[in-house]
């Protein structure tokens, strides 16, 4: 291990934070804040790319690990590390940050300093969630991610920002109360917040099982709101229609889904198995419900919100099908969703900036005026639909096929129906925005297609969609490495991946308690 490998994760966390500080200290003049933010996010992306480049595929457990004591009593450690599960998610966050900066380049006209400083803090918080292996530090970043988000929605909301911000904050803050109590209870039982240690305690049944089921439920509840899982999606539509584009890209999905895999299924496999059938049912309902609502939306932000609900529910289905294939598909689909949603929001944001409306009816016939936008939009839509050779197909196929063979044919068929509906609303959206007779709106403004900066971001994303569709083998082996246990006991019924590094400590976990 070289020195850089031992400190790379700290750098990844510190660079956006330093950037935020720099933006805050630099004068608010012209586009200075934009440039600082862009350079910071590009630097962070470069640092995150170091991880897959030096990731050792054959090695189990966490890599690039740092474990230092932060506070000795209660024992909170700065413990960070990546495995196959979080590796690409970290890169995804790194990738989407410059996209977000470019999407905000012209959209944010006033108070650029506050916007970009908070955007970079948000970036740190998200990276922290994916990297932390100490439950307290994890919880810290999890909560921290709410604040910049809420403030930015309030300040830059399109119509009623403060209301949407309050809704978002309460929806995501209140469920984290039971989460914190659950974490504290685990600490009271074991005197550790460390993920791997807790995993050992729990898999060896050293914690009483009856309360553990409530603890697992508290974890699940917090994550399910964040994803969101039907029927906890109340905040999504308002947040998507009010949030600045750069934040809408990052708000939903990743954090909650990752946490489900790592901290719900990873820590409480037995309890997760017990609730999995219900979550499968809720996920399928979410797929269909989101798709149906997306079909009837007149506002494209709300359409995107319900489309996201539908897609994220599909990933939830893959996770709680509890099959290895489903997990592979789910993680891969989280990446896909990040990439395509990044592109989709950038394009919708560009349209909104130019025409100042999100009413789909007002648009029409833009393809002639804005050929570049139309081309990329169509590619993105096809990727969302799951056309073979584009990335959406791989993830959806893995999830649906694993559900079909491993869970239940009925649910798989219902979920597939939702995917078909997804094709309907996306293609209909493309038709209404870009084709048909030229609308008054399209004629009213001079045609200004995507500018160079946007193209420089959106084409790589489109290429990435194609590459991820054609060569999933570049990603899947490392993802599998993170998810599969070293020796699977049976191929289909997935058992939890068990930490292997350390032997069971001899002392009893309840020792030292009064």
């Amino acid at each position, binding site marked *: 291990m070289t020195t850089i490998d031992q400190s790379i994760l700290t750098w990844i966390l510190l660079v956006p934070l330093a950037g935020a500080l720099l933006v805050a200290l630099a004068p608010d003049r012209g586009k200075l804040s934009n440039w600082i933010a862009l350079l910071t996010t590009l630097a962070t992306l470069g640092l995150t790319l170091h991880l897959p480049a030096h990731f050792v595929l054959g090695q189990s457990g966490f890599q690039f690990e740092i474990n230092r004591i932060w506070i*000795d*009593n209660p024992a909170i450690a700065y413990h960070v590390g990546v495995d196959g599960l979080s590796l690409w998610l970290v890169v995804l966050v790194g990738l989407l940050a410059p996209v977000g900066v470019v999407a905000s380049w012209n959209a944010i006209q006033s108070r650029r300093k506050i916007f970009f400083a908070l955007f970079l803090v948000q970036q740190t918080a998200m990276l922290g969630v994916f990297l932390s292996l100490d439950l307290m530090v994890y919880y810290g970043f999890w909560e921290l991610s709410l604040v910049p988000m809420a403030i930015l929605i309030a300040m830059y909301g399109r119509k009623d920002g*403060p209301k949407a911000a309050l809704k978002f904050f309460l929806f995501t803050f209140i469920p984290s109360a039971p989460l914190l109590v659950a974490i504290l209870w685990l600490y009271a039982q074991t005197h550790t917040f460390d993920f791997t240690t807790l995993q050992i305690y729990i898999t060896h049944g050293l914690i009483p099982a009856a309360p553990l089921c409530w603890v697992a439920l508290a974890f699940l509840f917090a994550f399910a709101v964040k994803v969101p899982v039907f029927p906890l999606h109340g905040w999504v539509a308002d947040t998507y229609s009010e949030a600045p584009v750069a934040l809408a890209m990052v708000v939903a999905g990743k954090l909650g889904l990752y946490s489900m895999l790592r901290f719900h299924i990873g820590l409480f496999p037995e309890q997760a198995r017990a609730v999995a059938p219900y979550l499968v049912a809720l996920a399928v309902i979410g797929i269909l419900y989101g798709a149906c609502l997306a079909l009837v939306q007149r506002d494209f932000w709300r359409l995107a919100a319900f489309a996201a609900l539908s897609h994220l529910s599909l990933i939830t289905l893959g996770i709680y099908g509890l099959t290895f294939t489903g997990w592979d598909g789910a993680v891969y689909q989280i990446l896909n969703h990040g990439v395509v949603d990044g592109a989709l929001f950038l394009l919708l944001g560009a349209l909104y900036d130019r025409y100042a409306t999100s009413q789909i009816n007002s648009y029409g016939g833009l393809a002639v005026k804005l050929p570049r936008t139309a081309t990329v939009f169509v590619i993105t839509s096809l990727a969302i639909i799951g056309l073979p050779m584009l990335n959406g197909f791989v993830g959806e196929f893995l999830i649906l096929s694993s559900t079909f063979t491993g869970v239940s044919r009925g649910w798989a068929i219902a979920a597939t129906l939702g995917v078909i509906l997804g094709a309907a609303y996306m293609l209909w959206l493309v038709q209404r925005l870009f084709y048909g007779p030229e609308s008054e709106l399209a004629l009213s403004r001079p045609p200004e297609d995507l500018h160079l900066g946007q193209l420089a971001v959106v084409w790589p994303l489109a290429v990435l969609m194609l590459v991820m569709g054609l060569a999933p083998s570049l990603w899947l082996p490392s993802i599998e490495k993170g998810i599969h246990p070293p020796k699977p006991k049976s191929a289909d019924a997935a058992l939890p991946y068990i930490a292997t590094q350390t032997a069971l400590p001899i002392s009893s976990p309840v020792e030292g308690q009064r």
Partner: protein
Amino acid sequence: MNPVPDIFRILPEVILTLTGVAVMLTDATLPPAWPRRSLGWVAALGTTVALWASLWQLSLPTGAGYFGPYGTVETSPFTVFFHVLICGIVLVSLLLSLDTLPEDSHHQGEYYALIVFGAVGMCLLTGAVELLVVFVALEISSIATYVLAGYRKQTGRGPEAAIKYFLLGSFATGFLLYGVALIFGATGTTQIYQIAHLLPGAQNQSFVLAGLGLMLVGILFKVSAAPFHVWTPDVYEGAPSPVVALMSTAPKAAAFALLLRVVYEMFPTFRSVWSPLLWAIAVLSMTVGNLVALRQQNVKRMLAYSSIAHAGYLLAAFAGLGSSGIAAAAFYTAAYAAMNVGIFAVVTLVAGYDEKLPLIEDFRGLIYRSPLLGGLLIFFLVSLVGIPFTGGFFGKFYSFSAAVGGGAIWLAIIGLLNSGLAAAYYLRLALAVANRPLEQKPAAPAPQVGVAVGAALLLAVAATLVLGIVPGDVLRAAQAAGHTLQAPPAPSAAPGAALMDPHQLP
């Protein structure tokens, strides 16, 4: 037996008293036309020296047989922790007053002197191990705050606040004194360690229980826990904001120190009695405080109810066992003080000394008028919500962690759900600050931040951040405080009032 002179045991109190007397005498001898502002600097200097003196007291030997004058005051990590905290709060409040009191306000010298005298009482309260000294200390601190609450005589609300606070506060101290009397009747002594030793064997247990109950009522009034909280919003609204910054934190810190001493040191064997009682009061305080705060339009009233809720979170720590509960409560007191003093400092600057802009709506667009104050206000609100990497988070974390460790899981759940509820009104203010200003309203001028206020804000921000990011040292101090309180010295070794056998009383 006692290697250090007794006076060193009360050195910070002595320094503060001398400072107060000096300020008051100078005020009386200066020609009436001369500005009194420099007296504030003298008071601030004296408080700083007292703070260092408290830290120095750590080097004194502690434990049995080392009690101060006549065996009435002890110095230990516990007392030093609270001394430093109280002196810090007083210092920040003085700095805040220096820049915000109008130049022409009357009795400025007395104002500064009263703050310092109040600090004497609070410091003495945390160190006293003799119930009569406790009572005297409580009165010193209370009388100073009664007067300060009514400092803005011209508004009408000021005297109202002072009278309300005085009447209700006198009742509360009356309760406390009655409790002390009953306990003296049951045990024949007012020395806390001896009481703890004698209580289990006391013949008339109903006396003891009544005494405990009455003392709790008196102390819980001072910390404004529900249902003894009704005075809080009116007094906070009427008192000048710099005084509220002080009285919402420092006397509470002192009263919590007393509560810790009473329940953990004096009545440890009565845990089954006071523990459910404090459980219920914690739940009641946070729920009532938060629910009522949701409906407030006036920022100071909202913060008053929020302080009631925070008293509830703090009382949750009392469900913790032994030293972990004490450490959590001590830490929470510090975290709460840092962020609350900070937010009142910002509110003072924005609303103005005369409070022409007291409503949440008046704070709208503050971040556009003054990015610094707007940002600071949001920062302190974020800390009050309990977002990680701020003092408020670790305060709540330790408090509820102690509760969970003591088996009170429901208390922790109710508390954390309450903090979700609280987020709603804190955010309402934060969102108003971040919102675009209304076009039709003429923008109020951006408040100026002077040197003294700047220093006060800097101290508050630094404390909030230190407690949120590197709480290790403060936590160790709190744990040391917890241990000293947990291990009472053997009563036979304690000097002081000769042990009286209650059965031999006539």
